[in-house]
């Protein structure tokens, strides 16, 4: 109940602020320097949050982004939709909702066919040091800290599968370096989390409760001003006794039509989920903004 109120309040704040903020837009950052939107709603790759701030606003302006992502897995379907704003290329605020549909697997899991896990994620990211575009003459990456507060709507089921909590907060630190002369972007993120399957299956568990450190890396090759390919690795905790959880991988191709629209196609390997075997599938994301 408390979680719902918090999230509604955030959504309302968002909606009122957006028209005011839209006046201060310049779309002045270079194409593709906003990254795409990762699964929890932060700017980055497909799975990993990077130190980039969403949108195309320079340090004098506001930018924003809305996305919809679809991931077709063998036993599940994931939908993900959300919006984010970038304030003066310094602070990023995001809200994303995830729908994890079990389809016929739901029946096998004893939840009923078509049972859906849902997750709200409210994120914030703050740039600390460095500039990913301009620091081409030194080794300093762009560094940002972030937090993602996640709240599930499936408390009863989560308790039943051994999760200790239905909401939790991830904290992360990202370092992103663009080696422009090599047309290569590298990112390393370290995350403190209790989330099971990104939070879809609750937080903490009977196998392990409490925070663990997880490591996420991305590499992207710029092939054109408007097109990049990349790969990511993201480790995950293994807190639940009833089902193992492993590292997630993806390879992606991101196309930036212009500063208002981008599309990302990826092959994601999320590892085993709820004892259903390796979930390898096709991921498609559309994002629009300024």
């Amino acid at each position: 109940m408390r979680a719902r109120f918090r999230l509604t309040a955030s959504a309302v704040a968002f909606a009122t602020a957006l028209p005011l903020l839209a006046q201060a837009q310049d779309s002045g950052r270079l194409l593709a320097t906003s990254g795409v939107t990762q699964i929890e709603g932060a700017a980055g790759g497909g799975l990993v949050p990077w130190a980039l701030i969403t949108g195309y606003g320079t340090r004098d302006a506001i930018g924003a982004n809305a996305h919809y992502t679809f991931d077709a897995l063998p036993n599940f379907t994931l939908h993900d939709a959300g919006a984010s704003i970038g304030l003066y290329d310094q602070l990023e605020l995001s809200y994303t909702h995830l729908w994890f549909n079990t389809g016929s697997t739901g029946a096998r899991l004893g939840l009923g066919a078509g049972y859906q896990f849902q997750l709200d994620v409210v994120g914030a990211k703050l740039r600390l040091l460095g500039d990913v575009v301009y620091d081409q003459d030194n080794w300093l990456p762009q560094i940002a800290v972030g937090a993602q507060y996640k709240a599930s709507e499936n408390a009863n089921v989560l308790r039943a599968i051994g999760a200790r909590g239905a909401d939790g907060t991830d904290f992360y630190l990202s370092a992103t370096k663009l080696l422009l002369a090599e047309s290569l972007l590298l990112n390393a993120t370290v995350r403190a989390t209790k989330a099971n399957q990104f939070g879809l299956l609750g937080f903490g568990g009977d196998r392990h409760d409490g925070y663990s450190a997880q490591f996420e890396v991305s590499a992207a090759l710029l092939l054109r001003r408007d097109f990049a390919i990349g790969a990511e690795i993201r480790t995950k905790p293994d807190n639940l006794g009833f089902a193992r959880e492993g590292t997630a991988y993806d390879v992606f191709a991101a196309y930036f039509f212009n500063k208002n629209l981008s599309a990302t196609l990826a092959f994601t390997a999320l590892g085993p989920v709820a004892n259903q075997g390796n979930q390898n599938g096709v991921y498609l994301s559309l994002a629009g903004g300024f």
Partner: protein
Amino acid sequence: MRRLLFCLWLVGIWVGPPALAGDPLYLRLGGQAGVARIVNESVTLWLADNRIKGDFDNINLDRLRTRLADQICQLAKGPCVYKGRSMRAAHAGLDLTQAKFNALAEDVQTAMERVGIPYWTQNKLMALLAPMQRDVVTQ
């Protein structure tokens, strides 16, 4: 398998061929003639760019082209010496924003595209120009 190879070939055509590795950047940009082409096309684009064309009012363009060509030539390890003022001194008083600097950079990218510089080579020059942001942007 053949279909996959065909798709990769199509992507390769779309992406463009990589430049010859190992040549100094100055040669890869086309030497003196190539740099002149890039500079001319860049200035043409800047004068047509609504975001920044006002900043070129009351500036001797021939002089600007000469200075730019010398600077790019020197940056790219060509046989030139840039004799102009520092970036900081030359741009002080213009109140340039990050958005304007980026607009300028975008136009240089477009210029290089138009004169046929491969994308990965373009990025090598952009990497040399990017740090100038600190001195050029004062607003």
